[in-house]
């Protein structure tokens, strides 16, 4: 009967999670007001923003999140944020070398005594990971695992242009304001945090579990913590990552003011590039390919007309 159990476990989990989704659901993520420069058939990255996004990653996110699929050299390759035509080989790009050198990594090859030493990274190395393994990452984050961000923009969304970036942007700038958080005490005198909701039918109190943060864009189901009409449970979910972007959290090298919006836009654009560094090359090959195919189609159409002209069909 193990087979039945396996099957029913699969299907049961499916049904359960599906209904959880139906009950909760998350708020629909949206792009920043000015939209995305990279979106659309002719879109191009706003490279200054991607560069700032890398700064946000280095200074904020990289203390918890790895990006294992990226190497420092990628930053200086064509289409990358620090590409410099003077250094066609990204390994020679001084900025890239500088970024790499500032990170210490554990060498993958042993030294002459057979020991593994820490050394400054080289452009060909993968981005330094904050933790040696998942267990360490969980231990440091209250049991939650900060996912690798290399392809996060492809892993959240539906494959439409920019919806992964919309998600990152909305999630990071979408936490309720700190001043909205209220403090209460339960019957036993234990303190707890909650949000008071009062818009339309969404009226009630959402208790925030310890070590968790409410975010309306996070997929999940908050109904167990909702004291109010269960037919109007707030959208969103809890996650173990608190708000990361406070105004002025980084000091941008190019002098841009580091508002929450700005940092969220920049990191989302950087992650959009990182998730698919060849996306602009891909889109720019589209028109030549399509024009070629359309011309071929027109020629074939006329050949077809000509060849068949004496045949009734």
């Amino acid at each position, binding site marked *: 009967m193990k087979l039945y159990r396996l099957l029913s476990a699969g*299907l049961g989990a499916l049904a359960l999670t599906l*209904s959880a989704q*139906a009950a909760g659901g998350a708020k629909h993520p949206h792009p920043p007001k000015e939209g995305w420069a990279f979106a659309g058939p002719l879109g191009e990255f706003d490279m200054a923003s991607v560069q700032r996004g890398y700064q946000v990653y280095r200074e904020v996110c990289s203390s918890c999140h790895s990006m294992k699929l990226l190497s420092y050299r990628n930053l200086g390759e064509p289409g990358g944020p620090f590409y410099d035509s003077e250094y066609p080989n990204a390994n020679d790009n001084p900025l890239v070398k500088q970024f790499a050198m500032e990170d210490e990594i554990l060498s993958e090859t042993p030294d002459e005594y057979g020991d593994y030493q820490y050394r400054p990274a080289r452009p060909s190395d993968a981005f330094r990971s904050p933790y040696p393994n998942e267990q360490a990452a969980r231990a440091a984050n209250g049991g939650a695992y900060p996912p690798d961000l290399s392809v996060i923009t492809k892993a959240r969304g539906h494959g439409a242009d920019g919806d992964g970036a919309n998600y990152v942007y909305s999630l990071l700038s979408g936490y309720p304001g700190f001043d909205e958080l209220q403090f209460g005490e339960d019957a036993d005198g234990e303190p707890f945090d909650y949000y008071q909701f009062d818009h339309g039918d969404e009226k009630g109190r959402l208790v925030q579990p310890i070590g968790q943060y409410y975010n309306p864009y996070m997929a999940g189901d908050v109904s167990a913590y909702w004291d109010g009409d269960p037919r109007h449970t707030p959208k969103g979910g809890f996650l173990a990552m608190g708000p990361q972007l406070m105004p002025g959290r980084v000091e941008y090298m190019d002098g841009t003011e580091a508002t929450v919006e700005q940092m969220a836009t920049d990191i989302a654009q950087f992650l959009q590039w990182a998730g698919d560094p060849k996306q602009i090359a891909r889109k720019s090959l589209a028109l030549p390919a399509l024009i070629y195919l359309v011309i071929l189609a027109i020629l*074939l159409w006329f050949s077809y007309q000509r060849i068949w002209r*004496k045949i009734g069909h």
Partner: protein
Amino acid sequence: MSGHESTYTPNSGFEKWLDSRLPIVRLAHDSFVDFPTPKNLNYWYTFGGILAVCLAIQIITGIVLAMHYTATVDEAFASVERIMRDVPFGWLLRYVHAVGASMFFLAVYVHMFRGLYYGSYKAPREVLWLLGCVIFLLMMATAFLGYMLPWGQMSLHGANVIIGLFGAIPLVGEGIQTWLMGGPSIGNQTLQRFFSLHYLLPFMIAGVVILHIWALHVPGNNNPTGVEVKDVEKDTVPFHPYYTVKDGFAIVLFLIIFAGFVFYAPNVLGHADNYIEANPLVTPAHIVPEWYLLPFYAILRAITFDIGPIQAKLLGVIFMFGSIAVLFALPWLDTSKVKSMRYRPVAKQFFLGFVAAALLLGWCGASNPDDPIIPLGEDKLQVSYTTEAGVDGVAVFEAYDDAAAFRSEKLAEGSTASIAIKKASAFRFIHLAQILTAYYFAYFLIILPYLGLRETPKDEPDAIHKAVLGSAHGAAAVPAE
């Protein structure tokens, strides 16, 4: 066509020499150049050529991908990403291969509906139809195996669900399951055998395609009238250049759509969760197969009841496999002597209903079966309480304030009380899926057998050339200039 004399004349000395030893050029000439083809084939008939192109594209891109791909659980996910990042034009290869699988299925479904509509499965083309069904099965197997390779969350958990289906088979099920996985659960050994088989099956498909074309060339093409070729001179044109150019045109149109997906929305046909590396310990919120398997998935989930000793789970699996098996029996289920639905006004309506049912089943497969399509009434609130004396009770309210007040009252009395949603009844996806599943089977098992005996068809034309507009005089084929 059988009975059609070969018109190949070897020109050079080498061709003559070869022709008397291995007449392969003659075979190609008779099959793809001078093959007599009905003159009235419409664009629905171009999908055969489109499918051949799809298979070639999958094989070519697949072989190059395999040069860079690593089939181990630790590296597969990263190796697919590395193909897209570091292999020159690797992103193109990978996206063409992934989108190509979807386009392949799109084409095969059109091709099959075409066959259903024009009665191409009827005598003398039963074997041709059966071989087509074999190709379809092999395609589903290949796509399922291939979907495992990028080793994302859907790869793993989708495969788990599908392999679990075999587990529902009594007695041998568990054995089959272990045999497929190569162990008690999906692991490295499973990935490696899937890769090996994913490499093998496309070549088996290619082999069956050759048989399929052979079986086509014995009776010759069917055509939109369903009337067999009677006069090769008047009814047909040579395949080349007439159909090479028409198919060529259609293939390029198809490639334009294909390219649109590859260049502008390569991931829109896939599932985002497959960009999360597979993790056996985390089950994705929403396991759904690729879009091309959704109708069958909907049939699987539509069966929620037991019949006699057969439990719902096994029954669902039987219905799902049955929905494909019934295609194999179709030539002997349809009793009508008339092939084309053009001349079967009643059957045509049922056919259109069948197309709609198949598409709607896809919608059901993608949706949560319990979600309402048409709500019948409003959700209410139900307060359940247990008094200190241990008496249970429920009360139903419309407004939350009333329900909350009642709960407070009960709590103040010392009872336990909680509020839950009392869902209004509704017409749900599961109901729609059940109706559509019934129709799917009825179409093959009841409607087609019965209708063939009862329906009065319209008059078929006597010959293809008479049905063809403007060729009442039956102009013979003119050699192309």
